């Protein structure tokens, strides 16, 4: 053997945040094995909080300045990846606080006492009365966070694919672990799993075709190959791009690939839904931005029309379907589809301000979404969540604080001035007007109309909550301090980003430059 083996260059500071979360997840697994059941909940919560905080500190203190490719090109540390990783960690931190809510019981309220017990069986009942809980949710969530952080920072399609799987698999499991209405939850998990594996297969097939075209899975090398334009292999490029984008658009819930969203959002434990809606969206959009702006921008004229059509469809169908919903979680699911369309509008501007606009939108939407789903967990009818909209009638009179907080979230979703929704929509639509050409302008028109339609739905809910008489047995229960903190942070940021968007917008603008 003549060739000496050369190890890849590893910049440990650059990947340190990922390693911290991996270590936290492994400690969480060991906690499951060695810590007594009674104290697992608190230990896991502590491990999770310390892990996310430590990763955030390392990321902001050290990795932020380590721009460049490392691990042989698998990991890219640049402005967008650092910004999005930091936001994902913040979302994970808030979601963990909501997930750990116990409402005075012995175990986390959202998760089933025993995932393996048949719903409604004696075993389930005895596990519940023994105070068991699914504390495995915390390490599973940490593994998912590793996948998300890697997804936004991967420099080649192979890493991106593995990151996609690492982020998805724990989410499939978490979806099926709801404490109440477990059959619905398990059905949602199975649907999410089946459709998710299909979309992964699409992504993998597309990545293989792009490898055939460019001779490399590196995103930068694919960009070079597109620039060099070899006519022989040209037939591989467009199918490859289309299939890879299908895989990614599935994860954000863009319209022809959105069928899983309402079922999975409704069936999953509500705190997990909040985490999925906020963090998965940001991870998937991070990957879409990197692929669209770095890897595939060379032939964007070929695939841009399709993406414009998808953006328009996503906004319209998301908005129209929101109107017909009667379940709060399904309604928020369709609203998240519409929001994915708004973010796609920013992506389609193909300008650096589009990147910052999309990232700013994701930040605003995520904080509001986590708070909104946390509030949904509080509204109860005979102990279980009252998700039907008719049950929310008159909530504003009985529980004015919860109803008022939810109303603020809805106003932000609607994009009312002085909430983060308005500044976010402005940040997302402005680059489409100035750089997106005629198509961009049309998309913005559709976006504004779709916002108006969804605003009608949100106002209808506010009217239901405050101005209608309802049955008196639906009440908002009082959350623990941790959940209150999470909701308060979400709400404060929802208003603060609407009034004073400057610092975060500035940060997004400064970190909008991809490393090529």
């Amino acid at each position, binding site marked *: *053997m*003549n*060739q000496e*083996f*050369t*190890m*890849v260059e590893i910049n440990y500071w650059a*990947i340190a945040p990922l390693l911290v979360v*991996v270590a936290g*997840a*492994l400690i969480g*697994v060991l906690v*499951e094995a060695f810590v007594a059941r009674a104290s697992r909940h608190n230990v896991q919560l502590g491990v999770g909080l310390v892990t996310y905080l430590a990763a955030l500190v390392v990321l902001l203190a050290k990795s932020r300045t380590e721009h460049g490719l490392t*691990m*042989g*090109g*698998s*990991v890219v540390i640049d402005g967008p990846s650092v910004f999005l990783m930091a936001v994902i960690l913040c979302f994970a931190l808030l979601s963990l606080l909501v997930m750990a809510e116990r409402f005075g019981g012995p175990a986390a309220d959202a998760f089933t006492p*025993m*995932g*393996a*017990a048949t719903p409604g069986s004696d*075993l389930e009942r*005895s*596990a519940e009365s*023994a105070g*068991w809980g*699914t504390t*495995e949710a915390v*390490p*599973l969530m940490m*593994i998912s966070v*590793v*996948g998300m952080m*890697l997804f936004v920072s991967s420099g080649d399609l*192979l*890493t991106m694919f*593995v*990151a996609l*799987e*690492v982020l998805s*698999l*724990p989410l*499939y*499991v978490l979806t*099926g*672990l709801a404490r109440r209405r477990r059959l619905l939850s398990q059905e949602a998990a199975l649907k999410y799993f089946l459709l998710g594996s299909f979309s992964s297969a699409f992504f993998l097939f597309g990545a293989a*075709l792009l490898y*055939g075209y460019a001779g490399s899975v590196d995103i930068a090398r694919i960009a070079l190959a597109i620039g060099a334009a070899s006519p*022989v*292999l*040209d*037939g*591989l490029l*467009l*199918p490859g791009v289309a299939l890879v984008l299908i895989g990614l658009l599935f994860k954000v819930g863009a319209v022809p690939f959105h069928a899983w969203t309402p079922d999975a959002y409704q069936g999953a434990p509500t705190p997990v839904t909040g985490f999925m809606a906020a963090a998965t969206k940001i991870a998937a959009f991070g990957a879409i931005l990197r692929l669209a702006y770095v890897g595939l921008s060379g032939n964007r004229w070929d695939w841009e029309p399709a993406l414009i059509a998808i953006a328009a469809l996503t906004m319209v169908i998301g908005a129209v379907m929101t109107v017909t919903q009667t379940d709060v979680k399904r309604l928020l699911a369709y609203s998240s589809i519409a929001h994915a369309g708004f973010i796609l509008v920013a992506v389609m501007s193909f300008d650096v301000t589009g990147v910052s606009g999309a990232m700013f939108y994701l930040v605003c939407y995520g904080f509001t979404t986590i708070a909104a789903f946390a509030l949904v967990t509080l509204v109860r009818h005979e102990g279980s969540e009252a998700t039907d909209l008719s049950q929310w009638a008159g909530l504003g009179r009985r529980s004015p604080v919860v109803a008022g907080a939810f109303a603020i979230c809805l106003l932000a979703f609607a994009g009312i001035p002085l909430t983060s929704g308005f500044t976010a929509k402005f940040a997302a639509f402005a680059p489409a007007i100035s750089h997106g050409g005629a198509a961009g302008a049309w998309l913005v028109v559709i976006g504004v109309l779709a916002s108006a339609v969804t605003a009608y739905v949100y106002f209808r809910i506010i009217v239901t909550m405050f101005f209608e008489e309802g049955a008196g047995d639906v009440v908002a229960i009082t959350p623990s301090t941790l959940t209150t903190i999470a909701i308060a942070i979400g709400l404060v940021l929802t208003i603060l980003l609407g009034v004073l968007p400057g610092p975060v917008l500035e940060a997004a603008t400064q970190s909008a430059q991809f490393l090529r």
Partner: protein
Amino acid sequence: MTSTGEAWAFWILATVAVVTALVLLLARKAVHAAFGMAASMVALGAIFLAQQAPFLGVVHVFVYSGAVMMLFLFVVMLVGVDHADSLVETLPGQRFWSTVLALGLAALLMTGIGRVNYTGTADLSAVNADPGNVPAMAGLIFGRYVWVFEITSLLLITAAMAGMVLAQRQRLTPKATQREWSERRIRSNTHVAGLPNPGVYARHNAVDTPALQPDGSISALSINRTLKARGQVASPVEHVEAEERIQREITEGRTR
């Protein structure tokens, strides 16, 4: 360009792989599906071998046809004994539209990929000679793609944890011993002598044949619940008839 032999091998193996993959999808019985999967994987492994990638080819056969297939068969054996699948389609016209869309996608991909006219020679013999087939793979896995390789371990951890969370039924109470069962039966005064055995007949005895009660009716208690769920309960009628025949012959012999 590919040589004639290679082209022949490809068309034969690819046909086998696609047809058996379709068997995997369309077979009604799980065992047929498993065979389809194994055959498809072996054909794919053979294609790798034909492409001068012996390591990949052999690993493909070992891992998929060996390990994964075994797991698959174990799962088929263990799970789903008394679960019935509902085969009712809830979406009207779903089969038609999914066929149309699938054919459309296939046509699009074929027209796109079919335009490719690759003229180079696919030859791995240089790499296979130096550094060698396996060292070259190792160089990629532990060199350029070492990060991907390491991160894959998280998938295995997730799979193990998911398996524990979703499938491990932990006992909350100790398993009842035979003595406890017996005491419980006597105290409640039901089935004090235990549940009835399955049928024992003059010419036949088996667990899948129910016992008869004194009045000739079938004792449902004598049959294992798993067999009942699988629909594998045999009818005792023929054994009863055989017994009656013997009885008749004996009586005939006596009277003659």
